[in-house]
């Protein structure tokens, strides 16, 4: 990842924030829409949760040597 990659992603994120606060202020069909940048938080937290949860399961329960069934 080069610097300009990060800059593009950052700009894109800013655009979504601007859109969220200008166009979607009255959007209230779900309870979470009142939380600012909810989807960003949700995405980040979910990602971390999935990785750690999967690692936990893998380490403690399901991972076996590749020749386990042979």
């Amino acid at each position, binding site marked *: 990842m080069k610097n300009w990659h990060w800059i593009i992603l950052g700009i894109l994120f800013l655009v979504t924030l601007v859109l969220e606060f200008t166009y*979607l202020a009255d959007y209230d069909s779900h309870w979470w829409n009142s939380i600012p940048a909810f*989807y960003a938080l949700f995405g980040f937290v979910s990602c971390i949760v999935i990785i750690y949860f999967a690692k936990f399961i893998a380490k403690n329960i399901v*991972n076996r040597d590749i020749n386990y069934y042979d």
Partner: protein
Amino acid sequence: MIEILTIPGVILIIGAVLLSLLPQKIRSSAFLIFPIAALAFVLTRPDGYSVTASLGNFELIVMEVDALSRVFGIIFAITAFVAGTYAWHIKDLGQQINALVYAGSALGVTYAGDLLSLIIFWELMAVSSTWLIWANRTEASDKAGTRYLLYHILGGGLLLAGIIWHYMTTGSLMVESLEQNYTIANVLMLVGVAINAAVIPLHTWLADAYPKATITGAVFMSAFTTKSAVYVLIRVFPGWELLIWFGAAMAIYGVVYAVICKDIREILAYHIISQVGFMVCGIGIGTDMALNGATAHAYSHILYKSLLFMSTGAVLYATGTSKLVHLGGLAKKMPYVLGLYLVGGFSISGLPLFNGYISKSMTISAAGYAHNEMAMLMLLFASVGTFLSVGLKLPYYTWFGKEDNDIDVKPIPKNMYIGMGIAAFACIFYGLYPQALYMYLPFEYDYNPFTVYHFVEITQISLMTFAGFWLLRKKLAGELIIALDVDWFYRKAAPLTRKVFVNGVDNFYDRVEDKIWDIARFLTQKFKNPMTWLNPFTDRNNEATRYSPAMEVVMSLILFTVLVFSLLYLI
């Protein structure tokens, strides 16, 4: 009667028969004619068109057309063509025939108007697809293929039992939607279909077998079995609430396992389970919008998933391995495949302007509009995992990750590029012009995916998923492991089961057979010459067999007379 030959499914099956008569040179090209012919019939048959046939006392509706069967028919025919193009270089007749029969029976299921024709195509699908696993001819694929076949025989058996029970109680064999009512017949049918839809915990055949199928076989398999089951669920079980939670659970289960798995085709296999979860959840919600969403998602899914299987197949073809730990750093060596893969990866992740976006957002919003916010959040959670594994982890550790990789990269056939190209084009085309798909959806429902809300939703989620991935990417690196799944129970139980039900029964019959032979031997010896033991007054070598012919005639006459008289006396 001649109309039966124009049923799309039958066209492909006849094609398979003709294929076996053609010389090898033109076989691959001829393969492509039949999906096109089938597609022509799919597109030209109007709503309400039906073909009937009689079997014994049953009036079978072997083909019935409506909007729902048409949209599945279109995509099945297109995929058969695309996958056939990708497999053009294959010279193995068995694979070609079975792939065509497999696609044909999936189409047959789609158009079946009664349950009896449905189950016939259903079983044909299981048998023909098994060949695509066995065709790999490794010990692992032999075993996995057998497990796959056994699982599907179980599923087909449950479905057939349900159909018979259903017929006995209702007297109807029509394929029609059932009221949500957990009677034995309905549950048997539901479980039978759920096995093919890979609903957890009945999903293990998929993750077990698909990664071991042939490169081209996996492309066919990723399209037909699960999606024809999704079709049957939409048709027969719409709005069954249980499906909401099974679907949402599948969606999450699949993505968690995809993070654990370290084999590229296994990752994709688990993502089939996850994506089918979205569809199953939509079917459970059962509103017009949700059923449209499930249908549209099945359509998009077949396109991008076959593209993903094709491009990972290309990696496997070129490098000979599908293990992440051996891959990495291929960006310079296989740049086009990377580009094509990313189209599929972005589509499955539902990024804007790709075809996953137009169908996934519909399914997820349908959950929201039905005020099922828990299900909606579960699906959103799952789509984070989708982007994480298929959009980021898999391409990162296959094409990047290492500076360089000294692995040998074989050139891949041109037809593979063409197949991938068509699928990638379709992914982008439908992403830009969703109306091209929406016009075929079964229910009237106006839906516009290009809203600010959806754009903000998916962009924020994806950006932050990327951030999370980048922070923790080292945790996802390849290792040489396998991940146990619930198939552990039957795979571990297999030796004992074999001992009890196979070896035990075998031994029993062996012994019985030995005994029968012994008895037979004993009797033939003894009856060869009964006089040796009937007449104790002669020595063993008596001359009973050497009576003169005249003497024998006289003796038989006497015997006959005695018999006749005794009979007369008794009467």
